[in-house]
């Protein structure tokens, strides 16, 4: 089912009772989640993504704005009538119930014409358990399960009612690195198999990028950009989005455009046709560096980190903002580690310009890009 948020705002009263200040957790958030897609709600902690999730599921009431499931306005509907499934960050499995009872619980709550027979409930619970592959754990208590298994139980409990929308709050953050990789594939598979519109919240951009059909990047309660992960990565609207997506993070330099040339530390590194003269912030993706003996960008060489598949060259530059530049190059490319400096050519498509004040993106002239 399609989900549409229309200028959703949520204001919390300040924690300090005496102060009249309020906290705007979510501000005028509007976006549409296409039916049957997996959407990652992404942002640093405190950006309002969890609040947005709570607004969608009905645990929080919006201060203003509307929420639509399909064409139905559900803003005033209580959580239990919205037909959503929610997986909590810490899973919130009922500790005194077995796995089976946990999964049965939402079904037992059904009333009226939706009420199911005992056999039907068991059948549905077993189906959900099979989907997340925990059929053999049904008689265990949550405390006897590993983190990954608890996660699966939580997903089964959220799915057993066949919700219109499945919501997951930081679903992978309590798992160890290995399990996280495995579970995110699982999430993708479960979502594909059920076809349920799914929204998950995460602060881990890699997680969001890897499995989402669409990502929504938030900061301080405002949506900065949304779209297909690759599109957002390749074409960020502003410096925040550019910095937030990508590992290692984008390298940012102070630069200048003069006479259709991009200068970093006074050296012309790229053509900048169609860009007005003035100071800019230059973001260079770590994969945008090409080592070259007569490269335009000269950096102080610090170290090489061999990662197997590829190599990270750690280097420095006076115009660089931050600690050290990290350029990722293929392992086959030779790097002369004896010299004090290393020179790079830049891939234009991996170089992004931003206004130094507003941090909005400045685009190269598409025509001149060639």
């Amino acid at each position, binding site marked *: 089912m399609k989900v549409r948020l229309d200028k959703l705002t949520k204001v919390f009263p300040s924690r300090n009772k005496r102060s009249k200040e309020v906290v705007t957790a979510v501000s005028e958030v509007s976006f549409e989640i296409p039916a049957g897609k997996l959407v990652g709600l992404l942002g640093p902690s405190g950006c309002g993504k969890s609040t947005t999730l709570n607004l969608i*599921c*009905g*645990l929080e009431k919006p201060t203003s704005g509307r929420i639509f499931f399909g064409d139905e306005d559900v803003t005033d509907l*209580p*959580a*239990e*009538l919205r037909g*959503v*499934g*929610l997986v*909590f960050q*810490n899973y*919130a499995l*009922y*500790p*005194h*119930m077995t796995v089976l009872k946990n999964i049965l*619980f*939402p079904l*037992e*709550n*059904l*009333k009226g014409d939706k009420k199911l027979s005992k056999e039907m409930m068991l059948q549905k619970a077993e189906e959900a358990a099979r989907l997340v592959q925990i059929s053999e754990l049904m008689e265990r208590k949550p405390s006897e399960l590993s983190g990954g298994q608890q996660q699966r139980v939580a997903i089964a*409990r*959220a799915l057993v*009612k066949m919700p219109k929308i499945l919501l997951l709050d930081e679903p992978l953050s309590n798992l160890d690195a290995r399990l996280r990789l495995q579970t995110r594939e699982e999430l993708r598979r479960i979502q594909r198999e059920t076809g349920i519109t799914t929204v998950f919240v995460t602060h881990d951009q890699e997680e969001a990028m890897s499995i989402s059909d669409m990502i929504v990047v938030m900061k301080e309660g405002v949506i900065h950009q949304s779209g297909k992960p690759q599109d957002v990565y390749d074409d960020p609207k502003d410096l925040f989005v550019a910095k937030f997506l990508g590992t290692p993070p984008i390298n940012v330099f102070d630069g200048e455009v003069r006479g259709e040339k991009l200068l970093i530390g006074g050296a012309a590194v790229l053509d900048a046709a169609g860009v007005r003269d003035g100071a800019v912030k230059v973001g260079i993706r770590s994969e945008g560096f090409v080592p070259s003996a007569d490269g335009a960008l000269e950096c102080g060489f610090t170290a090489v980190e061999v990662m197997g598949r590829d190599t990270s060259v750690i280097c420095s530059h006076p115009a660089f903002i931050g600690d050290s530049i990290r350029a990722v190059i293929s392992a086959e490319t030779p790097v002369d580690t004896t010299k004090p400096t290393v020179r790079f050519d830049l891939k234009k498509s991996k170089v992004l310009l931003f206004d130094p004040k507003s941090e909005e993106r400045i685009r190269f002239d598409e025509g001149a890009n060639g």
Partner: protein
Amino acid sequence: MKNNLKAFLYLLPALVFLGVFMVYPLADVLVYSFEEGYNSASQTFSGIGLRNYSFVLRDPYFLQAVKNTFILVMITVPVSTGLALVISLGLNSIKKLKNLFQTIYFLPYVTNTLAVGLVFMILFKKTPYSDGMVNILVRLFSGTTVDFIDGPYWAKMLVLSIYTVWIVLPFKILILTSALGSVKQDYYNAAKIDGASSWRVFSRITVPMISPMLFYLIITGFIGAFKAYSDSVALFGTNLNAAGMNTIVGYIYDMLYGDSGGFPSYASAAALILFAIVFTITVVNLMISRKRVHH
């Protein structure tokens, strides 16, 4: 072995004190209860046997005390625990004035038993000057006034039960509000999303989650109520046998120090009977808890 010796050396002072003030008197009570015709002045006895027990078990005052105690237990334990749960749920769900109400509910806990008794006198006792506040209310609704302190048995039992509940309530509320407060909000949110009615949330989430505390209160409630004595004294004075409101502990006291006292053997026998009752009830409670309590 050397380590063990050191450990016992550290424990020695505590063990000595426990031995002198706990184990020895307990053993002594057991011995007294089998010594027939014991004379506390000459410290002599005529024989050993079960006569003390058969006397106590046939004593109408003791039987009355057992009856009173059981009625009191059966009324006050469920009522006080249930009421405490309702009040705690209420306290937990309000935001404004929560601290004020918590303080009010806690007041009886820090108030002296006898002072509370005085308040109950004002509420319930008939005097030449007043019928007591409750009777004034009863008359307002055109009922017949009852003498709660000196009148019929059930009126007295009612007052005693109210009094006992009132005394034990604050502690239970204190324990239960903190138990309720420690249940994570996530469980309630999950239950809400799962579409559970408020009754199902209460019975399937809240109660199981606080069941260890609830069970603790029920066990200590049973034990405490079986040992009731001062409440009865505060309301009906020291001559409880005459008032027909004696409790088992009251009977033991009377047998030792009361006007008709001086019979440590009878008192010991009664004490051991009380111990057997409390022990049995606690074991039954523990057995039930195995099945019902979720740790």
